[in-house]
């Protein structure tokens, strides 16, 4: 082999070697990036919808890439089982109650799975564990909500535009307030009145506070009513007696009702007296006869007094009467009884009721 051939062979060898180095380096970088050269554990999660997630997409934990999607299989009726390869060294940080959700690396980027690590109370995950899956946010729903928000925003800005336009033109109360000086002065007056009212309210509330303090004082009636058991017992007794009195009153009322019924009954004597018109006419006639008879008797008595046989009897009787009057006038007058001052009476409901 000539030296030229030898040189050419070496150069071709170097060329080929470098090409192989580039290929191998690329393969190793890719394998390293896809976590194929490290020990991994397998996790699974069951999703209702994986939203375009693909085998080889990344698995993130706290913003760190910890693995890749190994496989995606349909599961059950319409669910999807996602199998993930996760670095063994992060196994201790992911707990059994961790959850997986589908996210996106950017707005238009690839889908990925984000694992939330769970709580410290739970044990670390083990190979083959199944973690809870959280359904992803549907982009269509998101866009629909955004569209609704946009429409609302347009409506709000439209209304606000009308509002500001009317304000600028001085329409409405607020517009007049902004543009009319008289209105502004009136408003200032209203505000001043409001201020005074609020001061009065403050004073009133202070007075009320003082009053309630007095009510709450241990010696006060209200406090005793609320706290003193003796007073409560007395009140209770009073109420009992009041109930008894009410019962008695009811009984009296019942008796009165019975009596009234009997009065209205024409079979009884009083009922006849009150209700029977015939009897009333007879009674009236009788009374007239009695009156006539009495007048005549009076005339007869006057005639008897003037009769000489009975004149002495009537004179003696007149003298005795005059003598008795004279004796009465000579006797001393009896003492007047002074009434008690009622204002000094203590408030004792039970006593009052008893009296």
């Amino acid at each position, binding site marked *: 082999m000539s030296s030229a*051939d030898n040189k050419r062979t070496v150069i*071709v060898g170097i060329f*080929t070697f470098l090409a192989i180095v*580039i290929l191998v380096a690329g393969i190793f970088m*890719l394998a390293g*990036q896809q976590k194929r050269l490290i020990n991994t554990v397998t996790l699974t999660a069951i999703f209702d919808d994986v939203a375009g997630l693909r085998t080889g997409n990344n698995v993130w934990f706290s913003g760190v890439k910890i693995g890749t999607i190994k496989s995606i299989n349909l599961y059950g009726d319409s669910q999807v089982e996602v199998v993930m390869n996760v670095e063994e060294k992060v196994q201790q940080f992911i707990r059994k109650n961790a959850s997986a959700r589908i996210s996106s690396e950017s707005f*238009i980027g690839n889908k990925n799975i984000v694992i939330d690590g769970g709580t410290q109370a739970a044990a670390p995950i083990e190979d083959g564990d199944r973690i809870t899956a959280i359904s992803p946010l549907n982009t269509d729903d998101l866009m629909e909500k955004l569209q609704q928000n946009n429409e609302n925003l347009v409506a709000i800005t439209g209304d606000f535009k009308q509002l500001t336009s009317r304000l600028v033109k001085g329409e409405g109360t607020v517009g007049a307030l902004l543009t009319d000086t008289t209105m502004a002065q009136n408003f200032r007056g209203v505000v001043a009145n409001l201020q005074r009212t609020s001061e009065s309210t403050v004073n009133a509330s202070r007075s009320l506070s003082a009053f309630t303090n007095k009510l709450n004082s241990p010696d006060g009636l209200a406090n005793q009513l609320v706290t003193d058991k003796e007073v409560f017992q007395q009140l209770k007794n009073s109420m009992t007696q009041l109930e008894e009195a009410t019962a008695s009153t009811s009984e009296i009322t019942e008796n009165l009702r019975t009596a009234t019924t009997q009065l209205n009954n024409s079979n009884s004597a009083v009922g006849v007296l009150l209700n029977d018109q015939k009897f009333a006419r007879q009674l009236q006639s009788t009374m007239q006869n009695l009156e006539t008879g009495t007048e005549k008797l009076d005339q007869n008595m006057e005639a008897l007094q003037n009769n000489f046989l009975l004149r002495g009897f009537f004179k003696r009787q007149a003298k005795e009467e005059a003598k008795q009057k004279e004796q009465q006038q000579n006797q001393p007058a009896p003492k007047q009884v002074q009434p008690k001052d009622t204002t000094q009476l203590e408030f004792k409901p039970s006593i009052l009721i008893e009296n």
Partner: protein
Amino acid sequence: MDLDKNKPGAAPARRRYVTTRRLDRIFVELAKVYRFNARFFKEVWFPPYEFREIIKQCYEIGVRSLPLISLTGFIIGIVFTNQSRPSLADFGATSLLPALISVAIIRAIGPLVTALIAAGRVGSAIGAELGSMRVTEQIDAMEVSATNPFKFLVVTRVLASTLMIPALTMFTTLVSLLGGYLNVHQNELTSLSVFFYQVFDAITFLDIIASSVKSVIFGFTIGMVGCYKGYNSSKGTEGVGKAANSSVVTAMFLIFIEELLIMQVINTIRAF
């Protein structure tokens, strides 16, 4: 079998075509291509292996093409990145440029550009060289001297092309990515490690395998087309130029067809 020639001295007989004259010629050409390829796969396994000639052709096809292909790849990396930026900037996604460059260069541009430039440089060289050897009857002389010209000329060149185009593709891909990095670093101030992280984050092993397989097929196509056109060139100096030109055009056409078919196959595999 030559359809246009009649035997000398015989009365001109009317040729009967199976289909039409033109279609018959196409099918006959295809049969020739098939026989040429079959002969290659038959000869490649048996000695003598002509290692020295293979090394020489590897040097000519691979090493000699490296500067041209590397420079082209580097420029394409810069230009492609620069032209892609506005489209991503519209979405505020210029940070995705490394991923875009990675997918474009590793999956398609690297192997394709390498193959097209090699088709132009190597395919034409092989076609012209073998064509001139055919014209100057050197191939006939080799046959007379008990040397297998097919093994010495065709097998060695096709093997060298098949081996060197993938190697050149590796270089082109790396240099294109470096060109892309230069542009991204200049505009987005992205570091080399982040750039290559994003580059490899966007691709899979399937992409690397597909790219390698494609470049092997492209290399074989370039070598085989060049050798076929040169080996079967017609007599005369005109035939040499025709063989060189035809080698380039046919190789490029076949490369695009192969790219299309391979892409469909890879995407079908990717879907599983």
